[in-house]
């Protein structure tokens, strides 16, 4: 019981994130939003600000629809809708990256309509060569200068080093917890794991670390009903922030034991080197991390998924592609082909935050799981 209580704290922290953030703001803390995991939280933390991920909820986006055409990805529609609905009214600004056409073009719309006093765009490269490193370093300097100027703070190397250490410690513990899921049966379900990571993106780091350490001290035990279920890896971008897509699999008899999601392992994989100049080390981490498919080196992600499949003894892979997310939709058939080539059943499902037809989706997931038994 104790274990599930500890795990429950992550879910509660994530669900109460807006109230908690407002409380922090009333205590004089300053919070900054970020849209994509290519935003280096280290720099925000070093500026004495609290980073919070802005994510799209489920459901229609009537406010965003006034500006965005139907054929925009629902992640961007949902994020813009939160700005127009003032869901994250405690943020002093939001940071974007050059991650895809959807995001790049939506930055224009945020500048015109979001109402945030501070918006910044980091020109993330789409490759990992030396030129890309130089661009990333230039962009980090530009970001640092921008925070210093706008928030009247000074970001010294010592502050950056501390922030790197903090983020690395969180990443390391998240990896350790994630690794536990390689066990059979795994001590955490996919839904529980989702909240452990999602809360990392919305809770002040020190507090989240303390929660993570408690979890390490009292390692969870497998739930009685998870043994013998098909072990599933989920691949995609950000799943919905109610974990319904993960729950759909688990309530249909599967068990999510690994993921290739930016709301999952792609968020914390790859540490920042702690020696040397911190900005350079941060730049290297962000261009060398397990990439989102907008990055040229798509084979790195395919290899990452294949390696996870082996290490976590995965029986089948479910790829969730957000409608109109070009980069993931182009990669999906390739990923399916590669996985089938190594004898791993894989299925691709297109979905959207704004109009999920849950019943047909569930039928397809159930049918897929049936083939794995």
């Amino acid at each position, binding site marked *: 019981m104790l274990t599930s209580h500890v795990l429950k704290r992550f879910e509660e922290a994530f669900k109460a994130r807006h109230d908690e953030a407002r409380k922090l703001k009333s205590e004089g803390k300053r919070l900054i939003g970020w849209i994509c995991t290519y935003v280096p939280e280290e720099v925000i933390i070093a500026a004495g600000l609290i980073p919070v991920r802005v994510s799209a909820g489920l459901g229609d986006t009537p406010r965003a629809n006034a500006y965005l055409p139907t054929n925009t990805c629902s992640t961007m529609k949902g994020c813009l809708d939160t700005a127009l609905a003032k869901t994250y009214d405690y943020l002093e600004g939001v940071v974007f990256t050059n991650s895809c056409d959807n995001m790049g073009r939506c930055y224009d719309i945020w500048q015109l309509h979001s109402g945030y006093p501070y918006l910044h765009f980091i020109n993330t490269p789409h490759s990992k060569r030396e030129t890309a490193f130089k661009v990333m370093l230039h962009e980090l300097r530009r970001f640092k200068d921008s925070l210093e100027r706008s928030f009247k703070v000074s970001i010294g190397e010592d502050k950056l080093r501390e922030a790197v250490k903090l983020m690395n410690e969180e990443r390391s513990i998240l990896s350790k917890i994630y690794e536990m899921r390689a066990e059979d049966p795994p001590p955490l379900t996919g839904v529980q794991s989702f909240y452990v990571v999602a809360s990392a993106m919305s809770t002040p780091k020190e507090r989240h670390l303390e929660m993570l350490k408690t979890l390490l001290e009292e390692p969870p035990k497998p739930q009685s009903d998870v043994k013998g279920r098909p072990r599933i890896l989920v691949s995609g971008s950000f799943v919905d922030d109610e974990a319904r897509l993960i729950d759909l699999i688990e309530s249909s008899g599967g068990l999510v034991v690994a993921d290739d999601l930016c709301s999952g392992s792609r968020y914390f994989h790859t540490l920042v080197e702690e020696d040397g100049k911190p900005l350079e080390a941060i730049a290297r981490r962000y261009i060398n991390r397990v990439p989102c498919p907008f990055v040229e080196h798509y084979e790195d992600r395919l290899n990452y998924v294949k390696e996870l499949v082996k290490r976590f003894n995965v029986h089948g892979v479910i790829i969730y592609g957000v409608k109109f997310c070009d980069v993931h939709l182009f*990669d999906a058939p390739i990923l399916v082909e590669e996985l089938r080539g190594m004898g791993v059943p894989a299925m691709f499902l297109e979905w959207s935050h704004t109009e999920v037809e849950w019943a047909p989706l569930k039928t397809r997931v159930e049918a897929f799981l049936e083939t794995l038994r």
Partner: protein
Amino acid sequence: MSLSKPSRERGLETTKHFFRNYVKPYFEGAHKAKEEGKPVAWVFSTFPIEIAQAFDVYPVWPEQYACLLGALQQSVKYCEVAEGKGFSKDLCSYARGVIGSLGDPQAPLGGMPKPDFIFAASTACDTHLKWSQVLSRALKVPYFYLDVPYNVSGADPKDVEKEYVEAYLAEVDRLIEFLEKHLDTRLDKNKLNKVIETSIKVNDLWMDIMDLRKSVPCPMGAEDSWSAVFFVLACPGSELALDFYTRLKAEVEAKVKDGVGVVPEEKYRVGWDNLPPWFNLRFYDYLKSLGVVVVIEVPCITWSGRLDPSKPLESLARRELAIYSNSTMPFRLRMMSRLVEEYKLDGFILPTNWGCRFMSVGNVDLRNILYERHGIPSLILELDATDWRVYSEEQTKVRIEGFVEAMAEAKKAKVKK
């Protein structure tokens, strides 16, 4: 759905029988080059094609092949093939069409000859990268991706950040190394200079022609422009392009001199953002029947442009970085405002492109701001360049009628002022 027969009519002599006279021989040339063992590359828009031309690489333009599939009304058939392979219906229809046509011996013009390389740049869209990867895997040939920053400040070419220009030039150096390695040769600098010299002339001629369209009445309509833009995009550093534009400019100049326009009575001058419905260029005939002339298309003037002969590569880098597909709204608005003024536009047509994010997001604000600034209406039109399944001819006609009424009202309001 019903779809009108495609139009093959052009208004100008130089562009007449464009497919038969130019497109077909160009692709035949590519097949011949391949047979003779010369390198062939598939090169996507906004790539610095001149560098490849300096290595005697024969450039073939996949987007053009996609347009051609559209113009022949065969695109949907091939899109469906790609969809059958797992590619979403919401992806770029150019990409789906070309992917679906791979390996089909019945494909128009015998398909594109198998390339030695595939070239794409980040200055256009995500699709070019992902599409290149799919092609590269399917054809087992290397691709080169020129990765440079987004023009996030929306700067004009001359004001693009120096770090971004440096990154672009570093990528050009890497491209040269790539070609030297794969072709086992060295760059001939004299050859590069010659190609660039030709490209400067070609771009100047093309921009001169675009400038001539500012004349009232407009001497050259969209259906001619959409065909003629081919050479400046596909092979700007070639004698073929130089010859074509020299003749085209002379013809357009003569029209201006004689005061001959696209239609007998030019009632409304309209700008066109993004791509046309290739599967039915008769669309423009319908506009003309209402006295509406499309006098300028955004892709035709920003995917090419004048270069500075004193620093050609740097000016090429600046032009490509500040291309509208790679630039934020402030750049697009300045450019479109300039077009409204210089081309004396009465309205703008802002088509969305179903499979394209950068050509769709932002249209609502562009429409509103253009109205606030210039008092002209814009029409947001749901289109796709080659997938007519998302297009309704009849509904489009109704919407155009409404747009024409709005332009009439706006003109009246201006006269009153």
